[in-house]
């Protein structure tokens, strides 16, 4: 097996036993990037020199006996996380030349662990999209079928893992942006509980929904990465002070007696047949491992997409007000006055999906419509959250498909924003409720496209989510399949 194909825990063993150095592993990953990046286009920026320097530093640490689980491991980071001295674009023209003066907390934690940061991955502009097609820097392709999207918005993070252009990556998830691309690319993606991982330096889209998390080749890697990035941060007042447990202890392989809730609203008419069959088969497999299946209901599911596109756009319209061409980012030339500078800098700097969402959010918050749209959506959000509270009285985890279809074709949904929004129908409620959820591979279609299984847990109970996912994964072979490129 090539070094770039390894998982975090496999490469860690080799680094620890001095079978390979981090510099060797990092060089091999870069040669893989050189070989396949033209086809896939996972990255906006590749930081080869900095990465090799970090790898040298990691090797010194390892030689001195100071090795942690991520020391010397080559990792790709979504281009939404600020990286000190390294351009951070959010895949937008408005931030094309922005060089942050500080590191996001997630990146700072990865660096403290001694991880090697390979570069910044492509995404939908400002994380607004489900296909990575709204990036200013061009599309990313799905390693399993280059005519298809990798999902989004963390499409470059997902494709870089699936194409073995990194050992693991970091993404963010506002309405499914870790889990849906993980599903489309046949990898593991974990959205932690809201507040579990600091959002400091993670460019905000919808502040009450955004959460960073791991995108990895297997569940153990997801637990290792979560361990490294979780925890309270004084720079993010919404990060939570609950102690971070030892996630490796959760991977017991034992799910005897675990109650799996199946929400009837998620197994609907018109769902892709192969997705439906694979997910039902996965549930059967978990039953064989000793889990009990309970039928549950999440009765307000049908309102989730509507609530999401009011709450998320309202928050986005406010968050993106900071991009005004004054202090950083793109500024339109020859503005005749300040207002003209604002309006043209934003008009020229933002892409059309971002503008559409800012417009929708501004409308939902505007005088005369606030109660009918924004406030109504916040009340409906309460009912959606209550659905989960009630369901978790009857079960320990909830199992659903991650997405209603496998990866769709490039260009298939770009003309119809609403159709694009509906591809997040199974992931959105989780963000509204703030609970953790993982997507992991549970099969392939007849045309060899990955299918994702979503396991949702109670707030701050990532341990049970990881335990259930790990047990299922270890009883199957799906996670061992790699895309042929």
């Amino acid at each position, binding site marked *: 097996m090539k070094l770039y194909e390894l998982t975090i825990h496999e490469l860690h063993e080799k680094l620890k036993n001095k079978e390979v150095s981090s510099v060797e592993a990092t060089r091999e990953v870069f040669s893989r990037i050189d070989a396949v990046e033209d086809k896939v286009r996972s990255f906006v920026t590749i930081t080869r020199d900095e990465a090799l320097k970090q790898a040298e530093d990691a090797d010194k640490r390892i030689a001195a006996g100071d090795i942690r689980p991520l020391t010397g491991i080559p990792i790709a980071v979504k281009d939404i996380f600020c990286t000190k001295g390294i351009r951070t674009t959010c895949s937008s023209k408005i931030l094309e030349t922005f060089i942050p003066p500080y590191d996001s907390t997630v990146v700072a934690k990865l660096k403290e662990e001694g991880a090697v940061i390979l570069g910044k991955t492509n995404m939908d502009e400002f994380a607004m999209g489900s296909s990575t097609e709204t990036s200013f820097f061009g599309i990313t392709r799905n390693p399993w079928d280059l005519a298809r999207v990798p999902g989004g918005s963390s499409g470059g993070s997902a494709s870089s893992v699936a194409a073995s252009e990194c050992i693991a990556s970091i993404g963010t998830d506002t309405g499914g942006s870790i889990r849906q691309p993980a599903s489309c690319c046949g990898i593991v993606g974990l959205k932690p509980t809201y507040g579990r991982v600091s959002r400091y330096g993670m460019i905000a889209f919808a502040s009450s929904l955004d959460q960073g998390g791991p995108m990895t080749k297997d569940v153990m890697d997801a637990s290792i990465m979560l361990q490294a990035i979780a925890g309270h941060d004084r720079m993010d007042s919404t990060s939570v002070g609950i102690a971070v447990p030892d996630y490796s202890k959760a991977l017991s392989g034992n799910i005897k007696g675990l109650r799996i809730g199946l929400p009837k609203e998620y197994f609907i008419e018109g769902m892709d047949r192969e997705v439906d069959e694979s997910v039902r088969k996965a549930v059967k497999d978990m039953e064989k491992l000793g889990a009990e299946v309970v039928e549950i209901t999440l009765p307000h599911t049908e309102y989730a997409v509507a609530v999401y596109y009011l709450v998320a756009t309202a928050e986005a319209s406010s968050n993106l007000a900071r991009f005004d061409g004054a202090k950083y980012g793109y*500024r339109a030339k020859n503005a005749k006055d300040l207002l003209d500078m604002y309006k043209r800098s934003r008009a020229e700097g933002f892409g059309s999906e971002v503008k559409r969402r800012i417009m929708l959010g501004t409308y939902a918050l505007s005088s005369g419509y606030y109660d009918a749209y924004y406030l109504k959506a916040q009340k409906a959000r309460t009912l959606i959250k209550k659905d989960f509270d009630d369901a978790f009285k009857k079960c320990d985890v909830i199992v659903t498909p991650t997405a209603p279809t496998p990866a769709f074709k490039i260009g298939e949904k770009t003309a119809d924003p609403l159709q694009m929004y509906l591809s997040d129908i199974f992931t959105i409620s989780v963000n509204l409720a703030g609970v953790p959820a993982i997507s992991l591979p549970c099969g392939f279609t007849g045309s060899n496209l990955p299918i994702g299984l979503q396991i949702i847990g109670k707030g701050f109970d990532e341990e049970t989510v990881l335990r259930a996912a790990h047990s299922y994964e270890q009883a199957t072979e799906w996670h061992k399949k790699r895309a042929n490129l």
Partner: protein
Amino acid sequence: MTLTIKEVEHVANLARLDLAEGEAERFKGQIDAILSYVEKLKQLNTDGVEPTSHAIPVNNVFREDNIMQPLGQERALANAPDKADGCFRVPKVVE
């Protein structure tokens, strides 16, 4: 629920977005479609339901008023599209 072109232009102005030729018309069609989809919320009875702004309770967080290392003028200005005399330079605001 459908928007008039005038409303689209009003919202664009609130959002500080210049609209290109034909853009108001295009946004109107797309936003109309999304608004008619979210109309389904009207069917939902939310009488007596408290709104949720965050999934977890978020309270004011206080800390000691300690002096921290500031960014510094040079670094704060490093990304400025235009600067002069240690300040951000923008078009004239006051006549």
